[in-house]
């Protein structure tokens, strides 16, 4: 079996793995690095549940060849909170019932973070555009859009108070 070494930064930590040739980043993050926050939804780029940030840009990890991540920086929801201190997006998603089954939430959060990192004061239309590649089957999107706008209002860089430790 041909294994290929890949080194990258995952949520600020240096990571090195041997991956199968042709493996996608989603599989490598989940089964290789043990970061289970990105989810598989379609494997074909239509649903956005696997969205992660690569060098700060939203990418679909299921369509990203793991080998091209060499030397780059990957961010996932696992790195969004600072210990028990949640990111503003996370608290606003909780408060607005923006997560129901929770499966799209990781991708939604990373798509929203990519938006707020470059556009801290988005319009509603800009928020809709930013999550237009992310599907949600539970919420009808409105609570998600409201949550992102609320996070922007509060200043997405601010960490909000703890909701208790995450399990």
């Amino acid at each position, binding site marked *: *079996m*041909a294994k*290929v070494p890949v080194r990258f930064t995952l949520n600020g930590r240096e990571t090195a793995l041997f991956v*199968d*040739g*042709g493996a*996608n980043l989603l599989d490598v993050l989940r089964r290789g690095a043990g970061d289970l926050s990105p989810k598989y939804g379609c*494997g*074909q*780029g239509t649903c*956005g549940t696997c*969205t992660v940030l*690569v060098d700060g*840009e*939203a*990418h*679909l990890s*299921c*369509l*990203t*060849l793991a*080998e*091209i991540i060499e030397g780059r920086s990957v961010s996932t929801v696992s790195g969004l909170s600072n210990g028990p201190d949640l990111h503003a997006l996370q608290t606003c998603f909780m408060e607005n019932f923006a997560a129901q089954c929770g499966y799209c939430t990781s991708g939604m959060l990373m*798509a929203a973070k*990519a*938006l707020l990192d470059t556009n801290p004061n988005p319009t509603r239309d800009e928020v*809709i*555009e*930013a*999550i*237009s*590649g*992310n599907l949600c089957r539970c919420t009808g999107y409105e609570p998600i859009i409201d949550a992102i706008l609320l996070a922007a209002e509060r200043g997405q860089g601010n960490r909000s108070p703890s909701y208790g430790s995450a399990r």
Partner: protein
Amino acid sequence: MIAVETYASADQAATALHGDAVFLGGGTLIMRAVNYGDLKTERIVRSTDPAMKSISTSGERISIGAAATMSDVMLNPQLAFLAPVARSIGGPAVRNMATVGGNLFASHPYGDFAVALLALDGRVSVAGSGEEDLGAFLARRSSFSGVVTEVSIARPATGDFRYRKVSRIKPKGVSVMSLAAWLPRSGGRLSGARVAFGAMGNTPVRANGVERALEGANLDVSGIAEALRAVRTDLQPPDDPIASSWYRSEVAPVHLRRLLLDEEVS
């Protein structure tokens, strides 16, 4: 087991692209095939050639590197007229990955960016070979093996380029059809207009009958009437889950009218 080969230049990659190997651009098409076991090869070739990401203007034409992403297009001031086209492709994550070169290979009903390039007299540069007309390239794309390095297009005068993507889902979805038109005028009348459709054939196609009907016409209701009639017979759209062939043919004149007259759609 799939092996990935990475080359520093497009030429090297093209040389390595023998047998059944495939070239990986942004990954949105090839990785989908990998994930679904549809890839017919075990060799993937890619290139990190920075020249393939460049965007440059020369005279009346603009060259866009094949590895430029949709996001690169949206951010480049020289390509402001193409920003709405790029924005109509997928969501932000797809646009950060999907490339201009890759869009030439997107199967029906995808490939909306290529529709715009086709209307703008696109010409394709292939590593180790010359330039060729995009329309001819699209017609032979299923058997093409090589590396597309860039696509050059005409730089339209302000207001001469139009694009619409029609889908059933808001804010965006898969194309019922996409339409692009380059409408140069001479003395107020159309001269050398180019009109292209996406999702109305196996590849993005030009509507030749529409273009002929627009030659010398005024861009008004009576001037485009013949073109609206021509579009019904110009294209043989396929049936798919998004829309039937019949439906696409029936609504094509409506969308063409809106495009040509720049009508607002609520």
